[in-house]
């Protein structure tokens, strides 16, 4: 009896204790959504108070995003294109490398693994200056290609696919070989379907990464019509600007799709994250 009561009390206490960080986590997003419903001209100067002020609510800021003069959905489109292609390409190449590291024994294998580790250790920021010069030489400045190219090798993804492929049955490969399947046939027809969960988890991680990616697109993209969402929104942050309606409503619409996906695919988000932490 006494123990039961103690457990009940401690469970209530823990919930109360968890409410605080949960509120701190969710409150700023709620505040942003609230801000997006209020007239935005003075918002950046006077800041956001937390009173709802229902009488001020309107969807005008959102309506403005859809007007002809607004470039917001151009940025949205750019972000979608860049995220889509960098995710697809990174998944394809990384899964090929991870798979061959796990399933084959070949000369130079350790070197490849070492190179993957090396990339993890080098901050990308250091490579920017020469990479940018290279993009000038390639004529890739201010293009989607310029943003995507350096993103298609992703060491953590390679690692994850290697770990995942190590758990796949090698007997299947021999059986397929006896049936006359080529090495590439084995990969595309048998192994790719088996690695679907890995594609799901890493796809989410890569898509989230490129959707929010900032520094490299900031360097490569030069004109407003090529900007991605983070670059475009950051450009509106100046205190003298008068585009706060786009900035605030646009920020909400940038996060909203991801939160919706997250609510339905929580498990995948979390397993994609823990990929790095679990030792293999």
């Amino acid at each position, binding site marked *: 009896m006494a123990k039961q009561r103690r457990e009940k009390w401690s469970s209530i206490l823990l919930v109360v204790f*968890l409410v605080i960080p949960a509120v701190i986590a969710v409150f700023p997003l709620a505040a942003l959504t609230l801000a997006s419903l209020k007239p935005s001209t003075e918002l950046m100067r006077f800041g956001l108070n937390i009173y709802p002020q229902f009488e001020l609510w309107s969807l005008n800021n959102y309506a403005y995003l859809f007007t002809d003069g607004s470039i917001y959905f151009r940025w949205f489109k750019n972000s979608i294109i860049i995220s889509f292609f960098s995710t697809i390409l990174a998944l394809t190449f990384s899964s090929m490398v991870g798979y061959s590291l796990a399933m084959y024994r070949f000369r130079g294998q350790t070197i490849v693994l070492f190179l993957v580790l090396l990339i993890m250790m080098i901050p990308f920021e250091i490579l920017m200056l020469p990479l940018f010069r290279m993009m000038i030489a390639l004529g890739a400045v201010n293009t989607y290609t310029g943003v995507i190219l350096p993103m298609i090798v992703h060491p953590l993804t390679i690692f994850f696919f290697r770990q995942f492929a190590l758990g796949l049955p090698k007997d299947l490969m021999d059986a397929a070989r006896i049936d006359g399947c080529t090495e590439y046939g084995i990969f595309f027809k048998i192994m790719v379907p088996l690695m679907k969960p890995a594609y799901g988890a890493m796809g989410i991680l890569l898509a989230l990464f490129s959707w929010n990616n900032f520094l490299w697109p900031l360097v490569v993209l030069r004109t407003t019509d090529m900007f991605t969402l983070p670059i475009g*929104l950051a450009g509106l942050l100046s205190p003298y600007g008068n585009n706060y309606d786009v900035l605030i409503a646009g920020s909400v619409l940038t996060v909203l799709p991801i939160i919706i996906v997250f609510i339905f695919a929580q498990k995948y988000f979390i397993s994609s994250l823990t990929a790095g932490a679990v030792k293999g």
Partner: protein
Amino acid sequence: MKPNSPPNLNRSPSSNLKMKRNGTKLKNIFYSQKVAPYVFVLPFLLIFTGFYLYPVVSTFIMSFQQVLPGQTEFIGLRNYERLFNPTFFRALYNTTLYTFWTIVILIPLPLLLAIILNSKVTKYKTFFRACIFIPALTSTIVAGVIFRLLFAESESAFGNSFIMFFGFDPVAWRQNAGTLMFLMVGLAAWRWMGVNMIYFLTGLQNIPKEMYEAAEIDGANTFNKFRHITLPFLKPVTVYVLTITLFAGYKMFEEAYVFWEVNSPGNIGLTLVGYLYKEGFQYNQLGFGSAVGVTLLIIVAILGLIQLRLTGVFGGKGDN
């Protein structure tokens, strides 16, 4: 795959046969088990050479040069000598302080949250986990927009009305070095709390339950169990979280950029990567920018090695 191409009618039968044999030979090599892994790895190697190896080498070379359009001059260590200036030291100081605070906050708190979420008696775990994780989905820019709205300078903004409730004077949050650091660290802590919590949670769930049961039979109390089972088992995860926090701290750029871009009063918001960006892209000092980059690489490498050494992962006391 289909091995037969349509027969070439213009050639004599014998040469046609020879061609075909050569073709099959090449094809056999391409399809052999020995070559296939190289084909899989080839695109990676090309991209690695082009977009990683070459730029690293190039950064090192450029850091000894003065790079101007059309003419490049070798100037020895002069770029590195120029690093001894107050702006660079300010950037180094800001970055180091920021890294220090993110480590102080983003390890114990997520660990505590993970322990609570892992407890048997806690209720609504999935809900709380999701709530605390949600900030990780936002980009730093969106998070920065929110922080600037909440911590605007006016008295009516949330931040100031909050501290005024406790009797403090309103603060110009972005203008002072201390409060700006608070905003930057706060932004990082808000976005990363959930991620690190998930890491620790995974670590906790990997601890075999039998360990605790055995300890209970031996009469261990909660503190003993935590000290002698939970902490040692969490060591690999903690080292991982420490490493990524350290690296992310020294690479920091966006958390400062959202508040001041790269030009802040008295450089209170300048970071090492911000300095690299400013010199390299705004002033076109490619050589000097590269020297900043190489220095950053060296700092990160040294700190990484020290950290791994101290935590005993690497060349230490043979812990696992």
